[in-house]
């Protein structure tokens, strides 16, 4: 299950809407080992495409160094689909390289509603999980 606070949920959806019709992408980092998505980090889609996303390689290095320095890991890796459902494509599955992350897919194909779903992708196996949006992440 993915537990995410309202503010982060809203931020991801807003990013997807803003970049539509290009795919939006980013990460929500959290303290290593806690599975708490705390720090929202929207990334630039270097592909700037309605059907593909990729983090710029320089941005990617800077992101991972920063997370490393703060002892964080990517808890959520999110991106949007702009004309297809919020489900991982074959491309999404083959490039999913963070086995510990929640892969959040947002679809902005409808102007009035949004689809927000979360998945685990491990060894090319996709498992959907429930998304629980809470007011704040409680201290554990």
């Amino acid at each position: 299950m993915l537990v995410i606070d309202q503010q982060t949920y809203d931020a991801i959806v807003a990013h997807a809407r803003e970049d539509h019709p290009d795919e939006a992408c980013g990460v929500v980092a959290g303290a290593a080992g806690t599975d708490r998505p705390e720090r929202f980090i929207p990334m630039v889609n270097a592909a700037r495409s309605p059907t593909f996303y990729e983090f710029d390689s320089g941005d990617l290095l800077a992101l991972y160094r920063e997370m490393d320095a703060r002892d964080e890991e990517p808890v959520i890796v999110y991106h949007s689909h702009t004309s297809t459902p919020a489900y991982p494509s074959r491309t999404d599955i083959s490039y999913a390289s963070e086995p510990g992350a929640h892969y959040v897919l947002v679809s902005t194909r409808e102007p009035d509603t949004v689809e927000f779903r979360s998945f685990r992708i491990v060894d090319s196996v996709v498992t959907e999980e429930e998304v629980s949006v809470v007011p704040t992440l409680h201290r554990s």
Partner: protein
Amino acid sequence: MRYDSLVDSVGQTPLVGLPRLSPSADVRLWAKLEDRNPTGSIKDRAALYMVQAAEKDGSLQPGATILEPTSGNTGISLAMVASQRGYKLICVMPENTSVERRQLLEMWGASIVSSPAAGGSNEAVRVAKAMAAEHREWVMLYQYGNPANAAAHYETTAPEILADLPTITHFVAGLGTTGTLMGCGRYLREKVPGIQIVAAEPRYGELVYGLRNLDEGFVPELYDESVLTTRFSVGPAEALRRTRELVEQEGIFAGISTGAILHAALGSASKAVAAGERADIAFVVADGGWKYLSTGAYAGTLEEAEAALEGQLWA
């Protein structure tokens, strides 16, 4: 350059820069003039490859009848090749394609079966498949699924482009059978890291679709979406505007699908400019404007031309 016969002269077309339409010295557009092929379109490459492949595997025997769903260019190319190599050709074509296409087909000895206008190329495919099932002895080369179609571009079109433009960053073409984009896309992705393969597709108005449900479409068997980086959907107004700009500013007299492709190429160009990146964008001029003169696309104002195109398969 010398060739033994017309069919041998397919391909090796010029790549021409666009000094006025290119946004800057760092972001440049290049037009691959496929109208310089024997029958005036890029389809000559695919037609020749498909016929040669069928001769090689024995499915095409001397004197055989070829059946093909086509809205014009492939039929014209096949008609020329068939007439040279001794085959008969039956084309299944939507009834509302421009008269020049029919004239050219008949001139090269092909027969035409008309399919209903609403439904376009998709409907022609359905009709052709039904006819092929009833006439097993006819050979349907089937450009939408024949790997020789994509192979023609993988083996000829794309290597020509790369040899002329080693600094290429984007390749832009129209999406129809998907042969050009699949063949060129695969080749260029193998050779050029980071290349963008950009598709332009036509967005028709309701008059052409009629009451037909879009869900009755089909996916060309050649199509593999992962080869594409981006798809641009282009309407008739934009395609017309760009077709006119191309002839007015650069002197290139191209068909209307080329206008749509240029629109997508210009979209990629402006993204590169905004990002401060250099770009060398090669796009396909699929055919010349000759077959579309009767549509009214090249005369009068843009509004008049747009109105004239309503209800026609402009691409």
